[in-house]
């Protein structure tokens, strides 16, 4: 153990502890801007670039960055001496001197780390004025880049390259012109960006934000000719409360339904319903391939990979186009819902497809892109018309003068609002494969599964593996969250080194609970763990916890779809993948 003194307080820390971490132990919060505290998610980002966290260390000539400087025995630190405060203020003033002053109309107003920093430091004047950087705004189907608001913290670059290994972004230029951008400063649309939104999730300012579709939603709600249907993804209910000051991990399903009704949606449905449907289709595909494999078919592709996550789908289309035959062809729950809503449900309520507007509330930025994919539309009308994030929903609720806290708990509408616990856990890493296992076990063995909680599939490790006993047949399951981890499993498959039967992949660290559209976690992994806990809590509270036991799903097959994996299911619930790798000369 190392003994140090911070602002006169003695602290004992382990070797390797940074000044920032040591200070936290004695409740001294040194402000940070570029640093991300996501170490236990396997994310390391302490470039020491912003210099806001500098402190005075006795004996050192210069101030030292506390986020990256490790403690040594006998170190004496001052975190708020006049010298430190002057330097810190000057540094923040310098950042502000190259930052537009449109805070009041900025998408990040109120949630911006830089704004908070300026407020906390009491900055009232910027002494150093000069040239400001200007960049062209870049709008893609899901993400907007306004790089004149970039402060060069480089968090997005770390997420895109080190965590997600997508490689859409890089630091470019140098000096005052340095900024983060896609290759050749082209738009994101022309890059291998998967729209996973992790860059957006960690951006401390308004430089990276989601494309805001909430106004379109309001317009549809105001249109008397339209019937507006909304679906809410499982992870939304575990995080929405945070936008209203609630503790992370507060489950607000009932209040959310209530709020959506008050906003004027005609039908408030649940994506969890479609998640159950996904299990039917994906589970059937898994069992088909598995049975073929077990009966000696060498042609069949295993492992089967889940395909619910649009970020992940884009990822393999860009980076592993030669492997597009491995993932399940099942559409994601959002798209299954859209398809069922626009076909089956529109028919049920005798409404023309064009007059039914489907809105999705997603923890995700990539869902905006997914809904815009051509294969998910009929005659130019998308199955899902608008996709908005958890954050956008919170804005809508705030705009509508609702007191979220005092809203009554209400239930989803029927039939597309009825779901099982299996549907709920889609929101977290490990959840999709656990839901699939619950159903596949019973379908494969014909036996009743007593214990539905597969603890071995749960957790926060980036890559997990587990074996499940299907009545004597060992099924090997892999789980990866974060695209960097997914890449590792894919490389193994490519190299023929993988013996998994099924793999679940989610693009975002933590799964959808850590999605790019969720309330900002400001680089705090504790928040993700609490959201995960809430998801499992909701599952445990459900009466039915296996997708195939959902009576509304059973009816849907009986009345409309026929068999899982059947012809109609294929038409409405499955999809195909494309090779999106850029090539200069077609070979």
């Amino acid at each position, binding site marked *: 153990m190392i003994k140090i003194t911070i602002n006169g307080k003695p602290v004992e820390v382990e070797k390797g502890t940074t000044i920032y971490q040591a200070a936290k132990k004695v409740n001294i919060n040194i402000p940070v801007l570029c640093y991300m505290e996501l170490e236990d998610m396997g994310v390391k980002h302490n470039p020491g670039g912003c210099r806001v966290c500098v402190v005075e260390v006795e004996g050192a000539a210069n101030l030292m960055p506390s986020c990256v400087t490790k403690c040594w025995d006998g170190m004496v630190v001052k975190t708020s001496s006049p010298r430190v405060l002057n330097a810190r203020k000057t540094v923040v003033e310098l950042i502000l001197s190259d930052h537009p002053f449109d805070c009041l109309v900025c998408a990040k107003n109120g949630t911006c780390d830089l704004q908070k920093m300026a407020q906390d430091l009491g900055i009232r004047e910027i002494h150093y004025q000069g040239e400001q950087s200007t960049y062209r705004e870049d709008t893609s189907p899901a993400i907007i880049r306004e790089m004149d608001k970039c402060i060069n913290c480089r968090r997005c670059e770390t997420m895109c390259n080190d965590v997600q290994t997508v490689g*859409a972004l890089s630091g470019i230029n*140098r000096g005052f012109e340095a900024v983060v951008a896609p290759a050749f400063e082209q738009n994101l649309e022309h890059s*291998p960006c998967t729209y996973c939104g992790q860059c957006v999730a960690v951006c401390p300012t308004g430089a990276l934000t989601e494309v805001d579709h909430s106004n379109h939603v309001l317009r549809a709600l105001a249109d008397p000719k339209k019937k507006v249907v909304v679906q809410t993804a499982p992870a939304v209910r575990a995080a929405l409360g945070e936008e209203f000051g609630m503790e992370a991990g507060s489950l607000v399903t009932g209040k959310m339904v209530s709020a959506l009704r008050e906003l004027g949606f005609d039908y408030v449905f649940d994506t969890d319903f479609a998640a159950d449907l996904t299990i039917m289709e994906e589970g059937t595909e898994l069992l088909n391939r598995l049975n073929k494999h077990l009966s000696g078919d060498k042609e069949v592709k295993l492992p089967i990979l889940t395909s619910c996550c649009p970020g992940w789908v884009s990822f393999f289309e860009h980076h592993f186009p030669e492997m597009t035959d491995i993932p399940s062809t099942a559409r994601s729950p959002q798209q299954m819902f859209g398809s069922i809503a626009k076909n089956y449900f529109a028919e049920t309520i005798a409404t023309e497809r064009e007059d039914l507007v489907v809105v999705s509330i997603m923890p995700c930025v990539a869902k905006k892109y997914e809904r815009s994919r051509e294969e998910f539309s009929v005659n130019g009308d998308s199955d899902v018309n608008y996709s908005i994030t958890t954050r956008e929903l919170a804005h809508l609720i705030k705009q509508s003068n609702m007191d979220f806290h005092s809203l009554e708990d209400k239930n989803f509408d029927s039939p597309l609002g009825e779901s099982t616990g299996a549907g709920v856990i889609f929101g977290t890493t490990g959840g999709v494969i656990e839901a699939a296992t619950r159903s596949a076990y019973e379908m494969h063995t014909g036996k009743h599964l007593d214990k539905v909680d597969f603890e071995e599939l749960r957790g926060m490790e980036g890559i997990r593996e587990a074996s499940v006993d299907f009545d004597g047949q060992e099924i090997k399951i892999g789980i990866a969250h974060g695209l960097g981890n997914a890449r590792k499993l894919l490389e193994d498959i490519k190299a023929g080194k993988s013996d998994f039967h099924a793999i679940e992949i989610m693009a975002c660290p933590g799964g959808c609970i850590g999605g790019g559209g969720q309330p900002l976690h400001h680089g705090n992994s504790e928040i993700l763990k609490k959201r995960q806990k809430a998801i499992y809590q909701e599952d445990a509270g459900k009466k039915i916890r296996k997708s195939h036991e959902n009576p509304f799903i059973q009816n849907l097959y009986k009345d409309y779809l026929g068999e899982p994996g059947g012809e109609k299911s294929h038409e409405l619930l499955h999809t195909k993948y494309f090779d999106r790798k*850029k090539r*200069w000369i077609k070979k």
Partner: protein
Amino acid sequence: MSSVKVEIHQEDVDKIQEIAKSYNNDPEALINALHATQDHFGYLPAEIQEIVAEEMNVSSAKVYGVVTFYSYFTMTPKGRYPISICTGTACYVRGAETVLDEFKRQLELEVGETSENGKYSINCLRCVGACGLAPVVMVGDKTYGRVSPDGVKDIIAEYEDAE
């Protein structure tokens, strides 16, 4: 961002593949590979960088990040007679700035630009190690020492009749 749109031929791809292979397609050797590529093509347009990225197993964004970091790499072709003015300190105190201004004025070019006919381009370079001759100007490989603003037109005149 490069405004040049370059058509890529198979032999260009072959050449880059050959360069990349000579560096074992190792991402670590990216900068050496970019040097070799620029030596061959004269500059590094976006299309060429894409292929280098592919062959060196790194993202295009990263290649672009590297190319824009180092002043030696250029995305625009230099003139057939690239004029480089040394702006090292020794040349500066002996009046390199006025020489540079004179070149800019006479050729109507800014630093980093290439004339429309592709003949001249102006660049600044750091110390060439010929401080005894300050201020120093290079046109291609030829070095001119003790250049004064008045001497600029004589230097340009040497190349006026050339292709």
